[in-house]
């Protein structure tokens, strides 16, 4: 897994609530057996019209906006457990997703793929969205070590929470498999003495 410490970037504002994983990556693109190429189809049915042409009204197609931070409305990533959603967002080039609320499974999937979910207050989110819209060059600074997100050149800043163990994993690029395998003896001992 890729390491994550800090990131300074412009951002893309996706001001929609309840973005579900079917929108992030529709089911018809889940037939692959590897993790590659999902970025091409991220938000497929919002990005493209039925005839395959680009939907100029969708934010990802607006050349004003760019960057490796996606700023989205409340309850991002709800719905299916498909990790393909995280692969698609990472595949497109995002490294951070900011929202006022994340669905559980998506959040876990993101963390397992080096994609940092940053949960902020609703006030901060709406402030952030309006600043990006009024100035697409707005830079955002995300510091995982300090657990802060701030708008560069302003006093707008907020702390965010992350599980201490997951933070260590993100900073060092560790994944859970290594940890679990190193505890195999304990797991075998548990199996031998199950109480249920």
């Amino acid at each position: 897994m890729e390491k994550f410490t800090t990131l300074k970037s412009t951002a893309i504002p996706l001001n929609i609530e309840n973005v579900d994983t079917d929108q992030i990556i529709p089911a018809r693109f889940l037939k692959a057996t590897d993790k590659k190429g999902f970025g091409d189809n991220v938000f497929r049915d919002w990005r493209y019209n039925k005839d395959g042409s680009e939907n100029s009204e969708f934010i990802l197609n607006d050349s004003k906006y760019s960057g490796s931070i996606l700023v989205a409305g409340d309850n991002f990533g709800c719905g299916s457990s498909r990790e393909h959603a995280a692969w698609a967002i990472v595949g497109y080039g995002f490294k951070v997703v900011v929202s006022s609320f994340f669905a559980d499974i998506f959040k876990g999937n993101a963390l397992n793929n080096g994609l940092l979910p940053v949960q902020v207050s609703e006030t901060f989110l709406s402030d952030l969205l309006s600043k990006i819209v009024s100035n697409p060059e707005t830079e955002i600074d995300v510091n995982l070590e300090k657990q802060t997100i701030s708008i560069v050149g302003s006093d707008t800043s907020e702390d965010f929470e992350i599980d201490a163990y997951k933070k260590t994993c993100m900073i060092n690029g560790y994944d859970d498999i290594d940890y679990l395998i190193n505890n195999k003896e304990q797991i075998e001992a548990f199996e031998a003495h199950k109480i249920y």
Partner: protein
Amino acid sequence: MSKKTLFDKVWDSHVVSSIDNGPQILYIDKHLIHEVTSPQAFNELEDRGIPIFRPDQIVATADHNTPTLNQDQPIKDALSRNQLEQLSENCRKNNITLYELGHQYNGIVHVMAPELGVTQPGSTMVCGDSHTSTHGAFGAIAFGIGTSQVAQVFASQCLLLTKPKSLRVTVNGKLQHGVLPKDVILYIISKLGTNSGTGYFCEYAGNVFEEMSMEGRMTVCNMSIEMGARGGMIAPDETTFEYVKGRKFAPQGEDFDKKVDYWKTLPTDDGAQFDKEYHFEAEDIEPMVTYGTNPGMGIKISETIPVDENPSFKKSLAYMNFEAGESLINKPINFVFIGSCTNSRIEDFRVAADFIKGKKKADNVTAWLVPGSKQVEAQIIEEGLKVVFDEAGFELRQPGCSACLAMNDDKIPQGEYCVSTSNRNFEGRQGQGSRTILASPLVAAATAVEGKIIDITKHLN
């Protein structure tokens, strides 16, 4: 001794160890896999040279991507065929039990596992599918996981998790005629919203759930994820034990009796504390329909669509081509789907057949009935329900996830409405541009007969 909830008891008995100020290692008893979310996990382990730790605790089925017609013939779509072949190959290489397409036990993972007795009270179960919450109906801790976690369970039969908070939803009273378990859960989600359960594990309590069949309880727990909860649970009781008894993988004889003694200790202790509690009255619930693009956007069939100025709400209504303040009654509907891990068990088809018997499907409607498993399919035929469906012009297909997520060819065309017994009404969920209205099998059957949505409560004897 401190009072414990059902969830606490099952969770605590499965904790291998705890990291200071961090997650716990939770032992997983049963791991269900299917073709869509497992291949990358198999690859990961192979690339890292890690063997599958406990292959005999894994059960595999093919369901998401399978055709529901001509299952005896080779699959036409090359990508789908490849995914199924990889599943077969991965299971063969790793000695994993697989019920592949056409096998007598094949079916939707959340229908076939309970049916075979793989699902048992007091156990922990995971699957790379968010509707794994279904199995909580047995008093198991069951939840959906991502593919990285599938790989973790392959490697260690464990997951690193932070214990979720606890939530209890209690529904007491007498359900009205025509109100099914699907209506109960759609009602709860419409009241609580789609993220009310995020970070929580939910227990359903009250006489309404106590009196439900296992099939009904599975429908309820299945949709826990639609209010954000990782899982839902119902305390195991005689109904549960009776259902599990004698099934293929259930404990047999004396072992079963011993297990039952243990399972009886699992229900939540009187006075145990939940982090959040909600109470509803059964009498307030009516047959439900959804009008928007998330499962929380539901109304009683006799109500009108609410008025809301939120831009995401308006975007959702625009997608559905509905107006705030209007009723869904008399809306013409051309597609009806009865199936999915929510409502494809024998009881669902009995309810539908009971309503349909002696009636005809409306000419404008395409009505697909997709059983949850080969066993359900066989039962439909054995009980004579197929004859009822055939005579009424409904099409009984072969088992699979089908039009719930439209990964296979079962897609609802652009712009069309589908009254569906599945679990998600997201944009394009049933095919690009399709518009889903979630409902019970009874409302779905009535819609197919009338060719439009009707107030079912006025049509029941």
